[in-house]
């Protein structure tokens, strides 16, 4: 607490350095319902981590726990090396950006951004300097004397961002900050949030239900479902190496085959043997992404060789979607439309397969 207060009294420009956030077996229970169940997670200083999940996954509760708006039922929450689980929100020094901006309507832009500094008793001329610095960071210096009601949604979100960084918070939380903005503006803001975070070295925990946004912005993404953490990983690994069928299905489409694996061979429940790179053994689910599936001559010798009947084809923008009836069950495939070839007619029999290096085996999942 004291360190952050003294650093505020220093002169601008400031180089904010975020600290790490660690969750240790953190749980929040409402009656018999676990909104967050035994969460273990380590956010590195300066990391941009998104918490992603469908509604009701507990992601917002996690944010409320970090901000201190709700108290955990059990477990510890560490900011840097300090246990903050019993510290009230106004003593945590964590900036929060809300989905609806939550700017104070009775104060103008300058007073809104200066609020956290005023509350900390920072001298007036220092406040003015710091407010100007923060407004410059979000390109809103020309709007300092506007009333909040005179600003558009995107501008309000920039002010909310300035207000959340002006007091050098130890971490920055964002709760679906772009959900209320239209699509183009959302992309501009994503870029700006990312570059602001990089230049400040700020630790950011970003809650969203939008996969694209999470993948675009984050160093790592924590996927939650039903109060439990499913997987924390880089965007690339979440897609190519999902930990379980939920994660596999959450990011794009997936063909999921259940069976067991042994010695580099995956045997489906129906007894079909497929080559895999996984060397462990036991029950597992094989995940094959639709775009990994290749047809006819494109297959190499080590690819599984299968045949299927075309059930349906659909053009979806730049890709052609093919649904096949195969001995494995229904298989979805997509092809990029880069030839003038027509889609295969319904009822056509096609030979298909995939690169065994790309098929992903999820052990222990049935």
């Amino acid at each position, binding site marked *: 607490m004291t360190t952050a207060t003294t650093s505020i009294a220093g002169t601008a420009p400031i180089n904010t350095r975020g600290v790490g956030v660690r969750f240790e077996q953190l749980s929040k229970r409402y009656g018999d319902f676990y909104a967050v169940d035994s969460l273990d997670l380590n956010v590195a200083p300066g990391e941009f981590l998104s918490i992603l999940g469908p509604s009701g996954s507990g992601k917002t509760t996690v944010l409320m726990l970090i901000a201190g708006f709700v108290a955990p039922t059990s477990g510890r929450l560490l900011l840097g090396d300090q246990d903050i689980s019993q510290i009230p929100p*106004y003593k945590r020094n964590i900036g929060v950006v809300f989905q609806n901006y939550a*700017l104070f309507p009775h104060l103008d832009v300058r007073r809104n951004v200066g609020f956290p500094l005023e509350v900390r008793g920072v001298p007036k001329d220092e406040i003015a300097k710091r407010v100007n610095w923060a407004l410059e960071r979000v390109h809103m210096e020309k709007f300092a004397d506007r009333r909040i009601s005179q*600003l558009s949604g995107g501008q309000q979100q920039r002010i909310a961002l300035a207000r959340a960084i002006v007091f050098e918070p130890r971490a920055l939380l964002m709760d679906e900050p772009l959900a209320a903005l239209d699509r183009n503006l959302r992309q501009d803001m994503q870029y700006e949030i990312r570059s602001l975070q990089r230049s400040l070295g700020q630790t950011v925990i970003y809650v969203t239900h939008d996969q694209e946004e999470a993948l675009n912005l984050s160093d790592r993404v924590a996927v939650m479902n039903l109060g439990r953490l499913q997987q924390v990983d880089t965007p690339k690994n979440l897609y190519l190496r999902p930990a379980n069928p939920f994660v596999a299905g959450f990011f794009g489409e997936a063909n999921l085959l259940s069976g067991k694996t042994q010695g580099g061979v995956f045997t489906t429940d129906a007894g079909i043997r497929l080559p895999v790179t996984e060397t462990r053994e036991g029950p597992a689910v094989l995940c094959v992404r639709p775009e990994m599936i290749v047809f006819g001559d494109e297959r190499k010798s080590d690819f599984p060789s299968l045949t299927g009947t075309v059930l349906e084809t659909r053009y979806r923008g730049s890709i052609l979607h093919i649904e096949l009836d195969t001995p494995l069950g229904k298989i979805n495939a997509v092809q990029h439309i880069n030839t003038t070839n027509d889609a295969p007619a319904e009822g056509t029999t096609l030979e298909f397969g995939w690169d065994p290096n790309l098929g992903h085996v999820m052990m222990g999942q049935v």
Partner: protein
Amino acid sequence: MNEYLLGLQGRRVLFAYAIVLILFIILPALVLVPISISADDSFVIIPEAFSLRWYEQLVGDPRWRNALVLSLQVAAVASVMATIAGVLGAIGISRASPKVAKVLRLIFIAPIIVPLMVIGVGFYMLYARMRLVGSFFPLCLAHAVLVLPFVMLPVSARLYSIDKRLEWAAASLGAGPYRTIFRVQLPLLAPSIFAGFVFAFIFSFDEVVVAQFLSGPRLETLPRRMWEGIQMGGLEKTITAVTTAQLLLAVVAMLIISIWQRRSATKAASSK
């Protein structure tokens, strides 16, 4: 509901009904205005000569003047007490658990549901035992209880329309609970607090039933003076001056409230 569905005939009937209703609401209040400024002793609605003599009497006659001053004092003290208690109560209730809040809200609103006569008798029994009948502050206290709902209702309504996240935002920015109340909640509640204060003031200024029980022989509030004036000597024209002044006060207060609320509504609209 679209009134065009009623057809031409239906719309005419609806319009006529609305006019009659509005006249019925405002005429009894307005009819005394011209009477109060007529020079005549008699009650003619369209006066022949104008004069402010009835207003002069209100201020000049010591009995009327004392009653007026006393009523203003009681209304001021009572509505200030009710405003402080009501605002704090409303904020407290908004933070209580839903079940507790429901019960508390009912208790705080009770003074407008329970008949005035019952409250009057109740206070009288209590005060009589404590020898407080006929003293100033106990009367103010009773009125404060009476007008508490007038503060609670608008302030509670406004509190519920203020986004909870503004409180959270203030906390995340480093403002403790008290600072959040003074720097964020009270400024946003100001128009509704003022509205509540005005309603409370007007009701207390006007209140006759409870005052009748509690004021004893010495404290004569204005409504009580009017009531006695009517009972003893028939209608005295000073009463028309009182009512006109009250009417004017109420209209001005309502105008201020509506202008203020419109301004703060446009301010708050963007924060929702």
